[in-house]
């Protein structure tokens, strides 16, 4: 029974790593080594279907409405989207963990205020809040990262708080307090190491949400502005031409799917591994 469980989870992990590594390779190798320019088009080569050669240039995924190579754009788009998502996730996890630990450690009013902020944050649909803030601040790469990062902290705070409440009662925390360590030292040196593991798992499970969110904002045209490609921008732009060129929508969508499945499988696998370690 256990052996079978182990085997299946390893297959999951292998598939997850395969999907994520190939996505990362595509997003790094294509912008670096692919000879065609993702931003410069050729008006004589518009809407070439996948696997065609035009004027000596080979287009494995075809070209778009301005004759730009889709593979080059997909590579750069993946890099930009995944970069945005990773930086935003990092902001969320740092902010959420810090606030969650503070809420759990101090309790009382501090706790009540931070937890109500979590409730408020979670009550507004993310995409609506992000669209509102981006439209106020103006759409740009920097604003998008900040807004995505600042709106994602709530779930991390909730989990960090719960874990802090458990750890706070342990004897070594009492001991740290007895030898006169400051609260901040206790929180960051002695509680944080207990929380990093669960937060990393949560981060992996939260990445898919961010990937889809970033793509949705791009799709609606309020993300990074054209001609810079992101996964959402590519699908949004391709939508207008999908009658005659469905590959413009198909391949960026598959890339989103690969990233999301990879992160989900990896997260599930980490959760199961953590559970089997405990039991």
């Amino acid at each position, binding site marked *: 029974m256990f052996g079978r469980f182990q085997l299946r989870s390893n297959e999951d992990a292998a598939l997850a790593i395969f999907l994520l590594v190939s996505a990362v390779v595509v997003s790094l190798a294509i912008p670096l080594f692919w000879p065609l320019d993702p931003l410069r088009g050729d008006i004589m080569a518009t809407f070439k279907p996948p696997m065609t050669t035009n004027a000596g240039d080979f287009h494995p995924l075809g070209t778009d409405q301005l004759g730009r190579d889709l593979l080059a754009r997909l590579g750069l788009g993946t890099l930009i989207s995944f970069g945005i998502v990773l930086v935003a996730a990092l902001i969320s996890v740092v902010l959420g963990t810090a606030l969650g630990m503070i809420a759990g450690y101090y309790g009382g009013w501090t706790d009540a205020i931070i937890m109500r902020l979590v409730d408020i944050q979670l009550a507004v649909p993310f995409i609506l809040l992000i669209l*509102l803030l981006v439209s106020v601040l103006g759409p740009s790469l920097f604003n998008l990262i900040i807004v995505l990062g600042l709106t994602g902290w709530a779930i991390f705070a909730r989990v960090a708080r719960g874990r802090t409440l458990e750890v706070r009662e342990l004897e070594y925390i009492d001991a740290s307090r007895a030898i006169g360590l400051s609260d901040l030292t206790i929180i960051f040196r002695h509680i944080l190491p207990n929380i990093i593991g669960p937060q990393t798992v949560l981060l992996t499970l939260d990445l898919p949400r961010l990937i889809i969110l970033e793509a949705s904002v791009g799709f609606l045209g309020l993300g990074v502005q054209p001609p810079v490609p992101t996964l959402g921008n590519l699908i949004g732009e391709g939508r207008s031409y999908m009658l005659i060129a469905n590959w413009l929508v198909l391949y960026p969508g598959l890339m989103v799917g690969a990233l999301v499945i990879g992160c989900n499988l990896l997260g599930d696998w980490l959760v199961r591994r953590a559970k089997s370690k405990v039991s």
Partner: protein
Amino acid sequence: MKGFRFLLSRAVQGVIVMFGVSLLVFFALFLTGDPAALMMAPDSTVAEIDAFREAMGFNDPILVQYGRFLAGVVQGDFGNSLRYQRPALDLLSERLTATGVLALSALLWSSLLGFALGAIAAVRKNKPIDFAIRVISLLGQAVPVFWLALMMIILFSLNLRWLPSSGYGTFQQLIMPSVALGAYYLSAITRLVRASLIETLGENYIRTARAKGLTQWRIVVRHAMRNAMIPVVTLQGMYLASLLGGALVTEIIFAWPGIGRLAVEAIQNRDFPVVQAVVLFAAMVFVIANFLVDVAYTWLNPRIRL
């Protein structure tokens, strides 16, 4: 009694949350410093912006402005839409039915099918059917709503010509938006029901039921499902916020005349009173739904009622 106190404290929390959201949507407009310049077209003259600022009362102290905003909101007055020159609430309520039909139909089919698939997967754990259901739910969570929607349009509207690609009013026009919006929840609910049911099926009282010689399906439906539903119901409240978010994109793609499309158009046109109304409305739906979840929770779980 304990149940009542629990519900009362949740209700108070709900009011606090709504108050917080009102602060959020109000002060969001002041992030750039000047809401008047934000709302006016980029080519307006300084004199026009000044006149607009005076007319909207943006020259008053900010707390006075917030008080006025809050007093209006409590009475259902969100101000006039800048674009349509009509109360924002009227625009919202006109679109309410369309979004309600879309969101509820998506929630309904995905919940029913999700419960069925989750139960089958839990009972046939580690069998091929469990694996197949798991793959489906993994795929359902992987594709963005808008991509699934576009793929369905390509396949069912452009190639097969079975279903209309947009519009509102007939059942055929509801199918694709509802499927696109519900796909994610189908996956989420299936996974939750499966995990929760597997855990419940390991409990002692289930072993007792089995020892009594009850059939597997009777045990699942009559005994295990009720307890297994507790985490599922709790999470459905959480999902509601993202359901409204998903409806936003779905409505854009299928030209569905709902609140989501109203919101995106309002954001693109810098029609902020409408945006504020939509955000507050979405938060209110979320708070009320989660309160109902708490009510259902006390009913499902007698332990908090004692």
